[in-house]
């Protein structure tokens, strides 16, 4: 049964992935401002040279052939070379990927642990001061433009107080620091980007956990557990939270796209050397192979995250296994 579910999810994963890659390919191909236009305007290049370049990139072929060719190359992780500096796209992406993964993993952990903690606290102290305070912060978190928050924090912590660096991942003198200083340096650089990119998701998850905890705590099985002589702590953290946790996994999986999407803004603001900023630069300079590579890798990571969430969900929810 289990194998069948996983197999089905994998199949969905592949179909969705092909769909995403095709949509991306389509958008780039049909929009005005195709890469060959750049060639049209430069009079220095001769007609023969232009044809040669078009042929080299396969731009003279019909769109579906180009897509299939591109896809076959993609399976071998060959996205071609960047138009800007002729470096292989995959190399450029791999160079930036670890920083982005680190940022998102940290944000996701903060969202998960923070959201569960605040949501549970809020539900226990329902309608008391703590709950109202948390709900207020959550509401702010929902409504605050995150990049504005980023700028305010940069002004306050970076420019006024001068306690935190406001851009990049390492200080200029990074190579001369001792190991612990290096770790501290990176931590300092990460602090603002991680906290701010986690803020929105944290608000969303807290709200969700609170609402479902309240629903669970009002259910009949909680009253029955009370009648068995269980103490409140056990009911909250064992019985009710177990029910809520199952849905939280799915929510986390679904929040991945937002997190990664938000990365494009945060990484640009904080000049963070991640894939988001690379993507932004690629879009601005219309670096066609790089855009393709980044969007496909991004989609792949998101899908993988969702897939993992699905699998965990199947494992922890007893109601699915036997269906």
């Amino acid at each position, binding site marked *: 049964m289990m194998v069948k579910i996983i197999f089905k999810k994998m199949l969905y994963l592949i179909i969705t992935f092909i769909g995403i890659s095709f949509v991306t390919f389509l958008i780039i191909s049909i929009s005005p401002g195709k890469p060959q236009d750049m060639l049209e305007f430069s009079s220095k290049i001769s007609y023969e040279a232009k044809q040669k370049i078009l042929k080299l990139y396969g731009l003279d072929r019909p769109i579906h052939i180009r897509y299939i060719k591109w896809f076959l190359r993609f399976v071998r992780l060959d996205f071609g070379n960047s138009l800007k500096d002729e470096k292989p796209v995959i190399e450029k992406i791999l160079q930036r990927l670890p920083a982005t993964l680190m940022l998102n993993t940290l944000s996701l952990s903060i969202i998960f642990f923070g959201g569960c903690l605040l949501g549970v606290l809020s539900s226990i102290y329902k309608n008391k001061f703590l709950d109202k305070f948390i709900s207020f912060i959550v509401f702010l978190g929902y409504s605050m433009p995150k990049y504005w928050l980023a700028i305010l924090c940069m002004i306050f912590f970076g420019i006024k107080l001068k306690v935190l660096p406001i851009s990049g991942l390492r200080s200029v003198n990074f190579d001369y620091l001792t190991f612990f200083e290096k770790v501290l340096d990176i931590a300092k650089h990460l602090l603002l980007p991680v906290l701010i990119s986690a803020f929105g998701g944290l608000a969303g998850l807290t709200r969700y956990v609170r609402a479902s905890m309240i629903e669970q705590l009002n259910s*009949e*099985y909680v*009253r029955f557990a*009370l*009648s068995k*002589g269980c103490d409140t702590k056990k009911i909250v953290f064992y019985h009710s939270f*177990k*029910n809520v946790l199952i849905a939280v996994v799915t929510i986390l999986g679904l929040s991945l796209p937002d997190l990664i999407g938000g990365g494009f803004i945060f990484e640009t603001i904080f000049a963070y050397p991640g894939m988001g900023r690379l993507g932004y630069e690629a879009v601005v300079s219309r670096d066609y192979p790089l855009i393709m590579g980044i969007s496909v890798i991004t989609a792949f990571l998101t899908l993988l995250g969702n897939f993992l969430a699905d699998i965990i969900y199947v494992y922890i929810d*007893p*109601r699915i296994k036997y269906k």
Partner: protein
Amino acid sequence: MTENTILKIENLNVSFKLNKKIFYILRDININIHKKEKIAIVGESGCGKTTLANTILLLNDEVITDYSGNLEFFSTKGCCKKNKYELIKQHKFLSKDEIKHIRGNHISIIFQDPFNALNPVVAVGKQIDEVILNHHKEYNKKEVYNSTIKLLEMVNLKEPELVYKKYPHQLSGGQIQRICIAIAIANKPEIIIADEPTTALDADLKDSILKMLKDLVDKETSALVLITHDISIIKNYVDYIFILYLGEIIEAGKTIQVFENPLHPYTQFLLSCYVDATKKGKKLPTLPYDPINLYDKNFIFKKCIFLNRCSKKIKKCETLKPEVFKIESQKVKCWLYE
């Protein structure tokens, strides 16, 4: 009060505060339960049966509920230093820790809706383990598991080792109710409260579940409080009946006596439905519709609560609340017996 009393409910009032109105759910309740006694509390929906069941274990929503009167429990187990617990003493309650000690250990409860009574994501065996562990911290894993398996056998579930690992959604309503019963009897409590234990079940299961419950109660020498709206099913199972109507006990007596000689017009009506149902071709009697608001102080504290539906009412019923009259061992709250 006699030697054998284990639960004494004295002038108990329970009210809920909702939307700034006070609803007087239960008023002036007096019940004594003796050791090994089986009683039934009978009443229509909305009469406060479930609130009464919850009150005995202080399970009502703390924020909105207000209690007054006395509720005392006398332990006969001899397992602990104390044997008298004042669950409710005027407006005060027993301490949280002591309530926890009583729940599931001295007094346990079976709820009406088995489908929602168990945690959907915890294996049923674990949920039985839990009630044992709550009150027997000294048991090791093996001992707990063995007692749970024994309990599953006691409630006639086949292949207990298999059932242990199942989740609620994999079991039928009857099976889940058996598990709830296993949880209720796990610690051999002095009192088991069964709140409409068979209402949600298929008709063919009702009798076998009730019979099993009665046998288990006898075996464990517990007392049983059976709460039901269906007077027809209890005759063979209980010794004593309390008739609850809109939050008041209007008649109480030995089962046989109440069935043979119902005093209160409401009880007479209830039993006429039951008796007549066996005769063919006769229409069942009905009562006129009478909505009474449980926050209407002028009505519920000044007049007979059954007034508007009563076919035998006299002048006095409209001006004065009836007192309790004793006819032999039966008690009735009606001016007709003054």
